[in-house]
C-alpha cells in the first residue's frame, strides 16, 4: 500500500499562521453559512427575521435564556409532531473545521439529531478551542462516537438545471455561534 503524509490532503496557503476562528468564519461565509461570536447578535438576527419559535438543547438554554426576550418561544424538548413549528434549532457542536467552514456534530454532544436538521435555521454552539485546522486533523479527531456528522453550510441542491437552492431537507440558514 502506498504511504503518504496527510499534508497531501491539506489545502495550500489556507491556514498558514492564521487564527482558526478567522479562517473558519471566512470559509463558512463562502458556503453561505454565518459565524457569530456574540449571542446578542444571534438574537437580533432571529428577531429581525421573525424566527421566534425554536428548539434549544436543554443544556445550553440556561446560559442563552437571558439573551432571549419574552417575544421568543423556546422549547427545550423536541416534539416530532411539531416539526413545522420550529423556526430554529440550537444544538451543541463537538468541534469545527477551519479549512472548510464545517461544524462537527456527534451523538453524545448534540442533543437531538432532528433538532439540528428540521428547523429552517440551525445554530451550532461550538467552543473556540475545538476548531480543527483541516480535514486530516478532523478525521484523526473523530473519536469513539458512533455517529459523527460534518455540516458545511446550509443544506442545498443543484438538481434542477444546476441552479443552487438552499434549504432542501435540512436548514436553509446555518449559523455557528463560537463561544
Amino acid at each position, binding site marked *: 500500500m502506498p504511504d503518504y503524509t496527510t499534508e497531501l490532503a491539506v489545502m495550500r496557503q489556507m491556514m498558514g499562521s492564521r487564527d482558526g476562528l478567522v479562517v473558519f468564519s471566512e470559509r463558512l461565509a463562502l458556503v453561505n453559512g454565518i459565524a457569530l461570536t456574540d449571542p446578542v447578535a444571534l438574537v437580533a438576527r432571529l428577531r429581525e427575521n421573525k424566527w421566534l419559535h425554536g428548539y434549544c438543547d436543554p443544556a445550553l438554554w440556561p446560559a442563552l435564556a437571558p439573551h432571549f426576550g419574552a417575544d421568543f418561544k423556546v422549547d427545550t424538548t423536541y416534539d416530532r409532531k411539531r416539526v413545522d413549528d420550529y423556526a430554529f434549532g440550537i444544538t451543541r457542536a463537538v468541534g469545527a473545521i477551519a479549512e472548510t467552514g464545517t461544524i462537527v456534530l456527534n451523538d453524545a454532544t448534540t442533543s437531538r439529531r432532528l433538532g439540528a436538521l428540521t428547523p429552517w435555521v440551525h445554530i451550532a454552539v461550538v467552543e473556540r478551542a475545538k476548531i480543527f485546522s483541516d480535514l486530516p486533523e478532523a478525521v484523526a479527531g473523530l473519536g469513539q462516537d458512533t455517529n459523527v456528522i460534518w455540516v458545511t*453550510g446550509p443544506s442545498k441542491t443543484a438538481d434542477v438545471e444546476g441552479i443552487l437552492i438552499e434549504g432542501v431537507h435540512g436548514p436553509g440558514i446555518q449559523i455557528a455561534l463560537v463561544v
Partner: protein
Amino acid sequence: MRFQQIDQFAAELKADTRAAVYDGSKKGHEKRTKLLFDEYADPDRLRRIAGEVKQHVVENLDTYLPQVEAKLKANGVIVHWAATAEAANQAVLGIMRARGATKMVKAKTMVSEETELAHFLEKHGMEALETDLGEFIVQIDGDHPSHIVKPIIHKNRREIATSFEKNGLGAYNDDPQTITRRARHFLRHKYLEADVGLTGANFVSAESGRLVLVTNEGNSRFCLAATKCHIAMVGIEKIVPRDYDLALFLNLLARSGTAQELTVYTEFISGPKSPTQPDGPEEMHVIFVDNGRTEVLASDCRDILRCIRCGACLNVCPVYRQASGHAYRSVYPGPVGAVLSPLMMGNKFPQKADLPKASSLCGACHEVCPVNIPIPDLLLRLRNRAKEENVPSPGTPPMGAWAVLASQPTAWRASLFGGKIINYLPTKLLPIPALRAWEAKRSLPAWRGGEFRKWLKTRKGRADFSPPASSRAEAKKAD
C-alpha cells in the same frame, strides 16, 4: 439496425435534452479543474496516490472484506452478504418484514439502482420513497437517472413542474425554488412516518468499520434521524484501508463530483445510535453486494473497481455530452459505464459491447479521474473482447481491407499513392452510408497520403529521432 444502439440513441436525442446535458456537464467540469489546481500544488499526485490506495484494496478484497465484517459486527451492526441483485433485495425485504415495517425512505445509492430496489419493494407491498430531490423526480416520473451524481441532468424545469402538477404537488410552477420547497414539505412528513431508512456508503473504513456517507441535501441524514432502522447497501469495492485515508478521498470526491471543497453533509457511521441520543436507528444492517463485481475482479479490467462514483468522467466526456446518459442503457453511463456496464452483464456482455466502442479515446476521462483509472486502456481491452467473441458491430465500416493494406508495406505504399483519386471523386455521391453520414456534417480533408513519409526521410537532424544504436543492432538481429 443501421447503427450501434448507443449511436442510434444519440442520433435521435431531442435538442433540448442534448443542450441540458451538455451545459450541465461542462459547467461541472470547469469548476472542478479550477478548484483542484488553485488549491493544491500537485493535484495529480493526490489522484495518483488515491488510485494506488484503491487498487491495493481491490487486489486485497479477500483480506479486507472479512476484516470489515468483523469490525462491523463488533460495532453492533448486522452484516449480510448478497451475491446477486435479487439476493440483496430479498435481504432488505426480509429485514423489513421481520420488523413489521412497511415504509422506507431512501437516500441516493447507485447499488439500489443496480438492484432496482424501489420497484422490487413496491411489488411486495412496501412503500420505498426516494428522498434525493433528483431521484424523487425520477421516481414520480417513472424515469431513470441519467447521471450518477446529477440524476435529472436531462430534464428542464418545465418538465419537472409538469410532473409535480400531475402528481398532486401543487399547481404548475417552474421556479426551481418553489419546486424545492414543495418537495421539502412533502418529504419531511414522509421521513417522520417511515420505519426504515436506506442508504448506500461512499466509503467504508476497514480499520474502524465506519461507513462514510456524503450528501448535500441532508436527505440521508434525515433518513437516519427520523427512522429506527438503518439499512446500508454497499458495493464490496467501497472499502478504504484506514480512517487516515478518508481525508484524501473526501477531498477528491467533493471536488471531482460537484466542484465543492466538501459536501454539505459528511456522515461517519460506525453503528446504531448512541444510547443517549433520542433520534436515530437502534438497529443497523449492512448488506455487502457483489452483483457482478467479482466477475469484474477476475477480468483484465479490475482497475475499474477503484471507481468512487464521482461522475467527473461523465462531465468531461465529449460522447456523454452529446449522447446523454440514457444512451448507455445502464445504471452507470459515461466512460465509467462504458467499462463497468458491459462487464457487469456477465455472459450477456454482447448486449452492451457497443458501449466501449462509443469513444474517441481522447483520454479526458483518465485525466480527470480522482483514482486515476486508465479508462481508455480498459475500453480497448473490451473492444478486443467484443472482437474475439465475434460480437456484430452494425454501422462500423469493415476494416478487413485496411488490415490487409496495413500489414503489407508494398500494398500500403501503393494505396497511399492511389488514394489521391479521392481528391477528384465526388465523395458526396459515393454509395457508402458511413461516408455519406460523415460528409453530411463535415468535409473530407484533401488526401496527402505519403507526405509524412517523404518528410520523415528528408528532414534534417534525423539522428535525433533514431532509436539508440543498441536497439537498432537488436532489431537487426531479430530480422
